[in-house]
C-alpha cells in the first residue's frame, strides 16, 4: 500500500463544532480524494484535488470544505458538524492522470457527531 495516513483515526465531536481531518501521503501523488462511507451507500466522493491549491467538488460536498497547500497534505473541514456527517471518512491518492491509475486509500477516520 502507498504511504497514506489519516489523523485522527477516531473522533467524537458535538453538533456545531468545527472539525478538521488530515490526510498525508508520502508518494508525491498529484491527485487526492476525500470519501465518506455509510451503510447502504458505498463510497461517495466529497471533494478531490488535482494539484496544490486545485480542488473540485464531489457528489456530496455540501457542508464540507478542503484545502491543499502542499502536495502531501489534503485537509477536510466540517465547518459546523451535524449528526448527518457521522460517518467513516477515507482519503485516497492517485499517482497519475488517466483511468489507468488506481487509487490508494488511507486507513479511514471514524467520526461521530453527537
Amino acid at each position: 500500500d502507498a504511504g497514506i495516513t489519516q489523523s485522527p483515526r477516531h473522533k467524537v465531536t458535538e453538533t456545531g463544532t468545527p472539525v478538521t481531518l488530515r490526510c498525508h501521503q508520502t508518494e508525491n501523488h498529484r491527485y487526492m480524494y476525500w470519501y465518506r462511507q455509510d451503510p447502504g451507500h458505498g463510497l461517495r466522493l466529497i471533494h478531490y484535488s488535482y494539484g496544490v491549491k486545485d480542488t473540485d467538488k464531489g457528489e456530496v460536498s455540501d457542508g464540507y470544505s478542503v484545502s491543499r497547500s502542499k502536495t502531501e497534505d489534503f485537509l477536510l473541514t466540517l465547518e459546523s458538524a451535524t449528526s448527518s456527517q457521522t460517518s467513516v471518512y477515507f482519503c485516497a491518492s492517485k499517482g497519475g492522470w488517466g483511468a489507468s491509475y488506481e487509487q490508494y486509500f488511507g486507513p479511514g477516520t471514524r467520526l461521530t457527531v453527537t
Partner: protein
Amino acid sequence: GQQVMQIPQYQHVQEGEDFTTYCNSSTTLSNIQWYKQRPGGHPVFLIQLVKSGEVKKQKRLTFQFGEAKKNSSLHITATQTTDVGTYFCAPPNITQGGSEKLVFGKGTKLTVNP
C-alpha cells in the same frame, strides 16, 4: 448522477462454494476498476478492465468486462475465509467529466462460513 448497480448486496456462502458479483451501468463505460475492502479495513485495488469482452484472472478470481462495456463481473472459485469482505466496482464518473473521479457501486458484502 451516474450510478452503477451492483448485485447482490449481500452474499453468504459455505467455504468452497463459488461467488459472483455483478456490476451494471446504463451507460457505456471506458473502463472499470474493482476494489476489495476487508471488514474494518480500507478499499484496496484489485484490477482494472479496459477492453470490450476482457477477461482477467488473479488466482481464484476472474474478472470480466461485458462486450458492450456496460457491465462487469467478479467471480471467485472455491471461496476461502480470506475472501471475506466487500467488493466494489468503480467506473469513471462520466457525468462529472474525465477519468479522475470514480463512482463506486454500493458493493457486495461476502461472508464465508468455514
